[in-house]
């Protein structure tokens, strides 16, 4: 009897996780579905190569990461990423969030106990909505950093931006996501 290191059921149970991962990055439900489908197919075909050195989830995530990068590459060839200007420049956004003297216009508030916040399902729904409305290029850099855990070098390469530009995008992403959460969740009486 042949021993298969991993079976269909083991692979299938990670579908939801993979779908969340892909949809944060691709922002298009169809493309995310496709990437996950491709990943599961590739995993099934390569199941005998799964070495068992990492968890099944880590192994699947690794495959998905490649599928997403391929997709992003094809897309940027067909339709080059918007240049920085069309998303509003860093200074435009900072001018809204900071006063001329460099102080916060509305200083960030204390969000309380992080564990308590993150356990709240309603908060996570708001978080998802806020993450999905970030401008495209900003979001792409941010998701590569926070979801795919790429380093700055990889992000610069994929997005074809300088290191400084990359830091600007990530800073802007954090400021924007924070504003959205503050307005939609923490700011509520």
């Amino acid at each position, binding site marked *: 009897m042949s021993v298969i290191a991993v079976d269909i059921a083991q692979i299938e149970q990670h579908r939801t996780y993979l779908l969340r991962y892909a949809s944060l990055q691709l922002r298009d439900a169809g493309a995310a579905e496709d990437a996950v489908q491709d990943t599961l197919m590739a995993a099934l075909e390569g199941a005998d190569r799964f070495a068992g050195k990492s968890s099944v989830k880590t192994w699947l995530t690794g495959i998905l990461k490649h599928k997403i990068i391929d997709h992003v590459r094809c897309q940027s060839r067909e339709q080059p990423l918007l240049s920085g200007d069309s998303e509003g420049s860093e200074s435009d956004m900072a001018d809204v969030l900071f006063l001329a003297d*460099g*102080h*916060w216009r509305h*200083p960030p*508030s*204390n969000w309380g106990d*992080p564990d308590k916040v993150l356990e709240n399902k309603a908060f996570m729904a708001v978080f*998802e909505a806020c993450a999905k409305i970030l401008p495209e290029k900003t979001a792409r850099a941010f998701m590569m950093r926070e979801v795919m855990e790429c380093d700055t070098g990889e992000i610069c390469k994929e997005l074809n931006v300088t290191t400084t530009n990359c830091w600007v995008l990530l*800073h802007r992403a954090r400021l924007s996501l924070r504003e959205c959460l503050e307005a939609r969740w923490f700011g509520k009486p």
Partner: protein
Amino acid sequence: MKIPKCRDISILISRQHETPLTPGESLWLRFHLLICEGCRNFQNNVRVMRSAFKRYLDQGKDH
């Protein structure tokens, strides 16, 4: 060098997650955080958002 304001400090708070700050930058950051509640909150908010991504992906997983 002019004294960094919240706007500059927020850049450092973000960038420290990508690359280590220079000793001078770390010093400005530490000093500023002692006196500025808004930036202390921003620093914590950024940490919460980083954890939220992890938590979001792992939601409702069936072990």
